Each structure stands twice: as structure tokens, then as C-alpha cells.
């Protein structure tokens, strides 16, 4: 996905340069190095001064989605981002985040360390779209802290992955928080490593983590998904892989750790291939084998 009108993006960075910052009433948007200098509490979150990245602090309700876009447009760029998103108490916010490469063969590197903080009763729908060139290296490392009674929907979607993707996600859920986490990744000639851990810390916190992974064209995907129950909580892991060709590999490791006897944790995991019957059915609707395969994959990658 590419932002249709980048001028309306709240934070827009190309390579290392901030192209646009669009603040709105009740929302502070800054490059993260400036935020680090300006606010002491930001210093407590990041030991070192950030080099680049965005800071978005939502203090009042806004009726439209906020958005950020970080692009690699020049060859051999190595981004090292530190991002921070804070949603104040009781606000319901939607955020679209796009990270991408403008061209296919830029040999770029995109490292992003992010913290997302939802204060008590806040609600965040966070759509994270990645679209990379086939020579890029990408490693997002995000940490979500969910305050009491807060609610997170996190959708990470990567239909054009880089050569190498290392995706780390940690979520901490406090009392009565809920999280719905979805990772949708179409592995095409990629080496992909996914590690996500959901810590259900507070009483009655709950979370569902879904992984939908497609392995095609010599992809190697290793996904480790974990839920840790520290209280009376509910959690569910749903990991599904679809192996499209014989040269690809998917490894799924769901893990449940229960530290409270009142907790309820479940998981399901499967790796399969496209059913011949589905392919034949779609071909009998006039689609070629490739079109039918692509359609089945697109359906698999929807939640």
C-alpha cells in the first residue's frame, strides 16, 4: 500500500529526511529526536537519543485516522528509527502506518524500534503495512503497553516482503485489557523470522494472536508465537501456514506459558497446502492456475 496523498500524512520521512509533519489539534507530532529533547518522560523510555523516527502523542480525540509513512527511495539507505506513539486515557484512535521501498532493488535497511503506549481505557486500531523491495533488510521491533481497560487491534500486513525480515513484537496487557493481533505475511523469496510474545499480566486481560503465513518461491519462514499468562486471563494463538511450492519452508512454534491456575490459554497451529479441489473449482470459473492460486492466497491473508 502506498499513501494516496502523502501531504495529508501526519509524519512522512523519505530516506533520512523528514518531508512533512502535519499536526492536528490535540495531537503532537514531532521527529523523535526532538521529542526526546523536549520531554523528560520520553527520555525515560529511550536511554539513548533517537537518531530518527516519529513521535505521535494523541492527547485529544480526533475523528479521522492518523497516519505515518517512512520510505526508502535511494540506494543503500540504512534507516535506524525510533518511534513512539502514545494514546491518552479513554481516546479511541485509528492509525495507519506505511513503511516501504519506492523501488525494488535499493538494497535498503529499515530498522525500527517502537513503543506504543495505550493509557487507561484507550483504544487503538493500528494498521501496519509493509511493502519492500526484494533486496531489502527490515527489522521492526515493537513493544505495546496496554493500560487498564484498554483495547488494541494490531494488523501487520506484508504482501511484498524484503529479502530478510525480522519481526519482533511484545505486548504487555494490564487489567481488563484486550488485544487482537494479526500478522499477515506473504513470503516471496524471503527469509522471515517472527517472534511475538503477549504477556497477559493484569486480571481479566485477554488476547488473540493470529498468524497467517504464506511460503512461496524459496521462502524460509520461522515463526515463534508465545502467550504468557500471569493472572486470571484468556489467550488464544492461531497460527496457520500455507506452503505454496516445494522449495519453501515454514516453521511454526506456538508456545503457551501459564503462571496462574485460573488462566485459560489455547492454541491451534496448522501448515497446509492449497487444496486441489479449490484450484480446480476456481479454474472451472475461468481462472488460470496462477490466478486461482493468487486468489486463494489473497483470501487466506484476510482476517
Amino acid at each position: 500500500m502506498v499513501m494516496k496523498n502523502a501531504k495529508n500524512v501526519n509524519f512522512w520521512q523519505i530516506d533520512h529526511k523528514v518531508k512533512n509533519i502535519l499536526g492536528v489539534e490535540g495531537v503532537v507530532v514531532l521527529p523523535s529526536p526532538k521529542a526526546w529533547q523536549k520531554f523528560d518522560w520520553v527520555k525515560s523510555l529511550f536511554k539513548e537519543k533517537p537518531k530518527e523516527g516519529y513521535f505521535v502523542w494523541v492527547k485529544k480525540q480526533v475523528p479521522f485516522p492518523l497516519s505515518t509513512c517512512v520510505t526508502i527511495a535511494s540506494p543503500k539507505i540504512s534507516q535506524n528509527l525510533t518511534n513512539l506513539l502514545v494514546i491518552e486515557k479513554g481516546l479511541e484512535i485509528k492509525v495507519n502506518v506505511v513503511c516501504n521501498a519506492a523501488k525494488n532493488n535499493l538494497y535498503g535497511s529499515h530498522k525500527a524500534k517502537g513503543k506504543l503506549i495505550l493509557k487507561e481505557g484507550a483504544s487503538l486500531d493500528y494498521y501496519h503495512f509493509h511493502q519492500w523491495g526484494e533486496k531489502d533488510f527490515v527489522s521492526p521491533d515493537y513493544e505495546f503497553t496496554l493500560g487498564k481497560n484498554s483495547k488494541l487491534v494490531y494488523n501487520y500486513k506484508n504482501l511484498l516482503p524484503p529479502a530478510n525480515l525480522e519481526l519482533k513484537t511484545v505486548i504487555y496487557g494490564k487489567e481488563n485489557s484486550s488485544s487482537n493481533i494479526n500478522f499477515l505475511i506473504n513470503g516471496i523469496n524471503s527469509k522471515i523470522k517472527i517472534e511475538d510474545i503477549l504477556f497477559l499480566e493484569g486480571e481479566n486481560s485477554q488476547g488473540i494472536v493470529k498468524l497467517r503465513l504464506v511460503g512461496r518461491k524459496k521462502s524460509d519462514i520461522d515463526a515463534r508465537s508465545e502467550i504468557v499468562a500471569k493472572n486470571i486471563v484468556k489467550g488464544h494463538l492461531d497460527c496457520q501456514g500455507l506452503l505454496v511450492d516445494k522449495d519453501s519452508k515454514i516453521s511454526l512454534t506456538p508456545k503457551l506459558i501459564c503462571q496462574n491456575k485460573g488462566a485459560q490459554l489455547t492454541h491451534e497451529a496448522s501448515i497446509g497446502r492449497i487444496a486441489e479441489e479449490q484450484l480446480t473449482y476456481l479454474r472451472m470459473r475461468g481462472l488460470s492456475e496462477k490466478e486461482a492460486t493468487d486468489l486463494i492466497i489473497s483470501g487466506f491473508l484476510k482476517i
Partner: protein
Amino acid sequence: MGKILLKVEKLKVKVDGKETLKDVNLQIKRGEVQALLGPNASGKSTLAQVILGNPKYRIVKGKISFGGKEITKLSPEKRVKLGIGLTWQSPPAIKGVRLSQFLKEIFLIKKEIKEIKEIKYLKDREINLNFSGGEKKISELLQVLSLNPKLVIFDEIDSGLDIKKLQQVANIIKKELVEKNIAILLITHNGQILDYLKPDWTFVMLDGRIICKEKDYKKVLKTIKKYGYEKCKKCKFLANRP
């Protein structure tokens, strides 16, 4: 009736090493309505799938032609593009893909189609996922109509439908296909739909062979109801074998 549209000649088919079709011959002319009756596992659905080119089945002998062109080795999608459509008896669910992705806009705004009230709620649902038996039949019918076919094979379109739904389905087939001179092959084991669509010819299939061809479908149905399919092997009335 017009020229021969579909011609199946001496067709022998194996699946998993077992012969499922044995020297099957069949001809359907433009605008003709034909019925193929037979008990479960007699080879009716196999014949339909083979005509459409399902790669699971291996043709060991014989050939299939459509519109004068041999299609025995053609891919399913190319057969569909030539104008052959098939409604599946038990269609698979395609998760995450909405029915409307298959049904072209131009098709959906056609007056007669808009009158099918199921369209409203089926088109935004994932194909065949949690569809009831009746919804599957309507969905199959809509999909095949949207392909602009010259021949439609209906595989058990009448099974699992209540009388009202059956009438509705039969009326759509009549309006959208029969009246437009589109050929039809109705595969059925209970024959319910035949009263509405009145086939020009009725065939009976047993153990992978077509053993009977008859003009009067009522006569065939009456005999089957009275004596069962086994009797067909020895039937004197229906001895007009193709």
C-alpha cells in the same frame, strides 16, 4: 434443435486406478435440454468433471469435442472460455474471497438477476463458507450464469431444495438459459427438476455406462420409481440403448 455442441465419444476414465467411466457416448445439441439419471456413484458427476477437464481424472480412451473442436486435453479454464459451465454438487469453500469477486457488476445489475433476493446477502459473503444447501445451489447458479455459457451442466442442482426454492431455481434456468437457446445437461438422481424443465432426452447411467436413452422422461422416472435402477439393466421398455 441446432448443431451438435458437445460430443463425448467412447470415453474411458480412470481415477486412482479404477475405471469409473466405460465407453461413454453422449451428444448435446445447441439449445437442447438433456437429463442424466442414475444412482449414487454411477459416474454422473465424474462425467461432468471430465467434460470440464478436472485434472484428477485420467482419460484412457475416447475424446470430447465442443463446438466441433476437440477439447480432450484442454485446461478447465479454456473449456469455460469456450462456453461450458458446471454447477458443482458439493462446491468447496474459498475462504476470504467474496462471491461478488466472481460476479461481474454488469451481471448483478441485470433486472432478472436483481430479482433473486438471495443475491443481496450472498454476494458479500465468502464463497460457499457456511452456506446452507439452498444457498450453495443459488450461488452455483449465479456463478455459472455470469460466465455466459453455451452449455451448462447442472450436477444435482435439485438435491436438498424445498419445493419453492426448486421452482425458483427452475424458473431462473428457464428464463436465463432455456429461453435463450442454451444447452443444458441436468444430472439428477431424484428427477424432481425434470417436471419444470422437460428434457428433450433422458439418459440413465449405471456403473459408469450410459445404458438408456429415452425421449419420455416421465416413462423413465416411472420405471425407476417402480423397479429401481437395477431393473434398468434388463428393462424392455427402456432398451433403446445409445
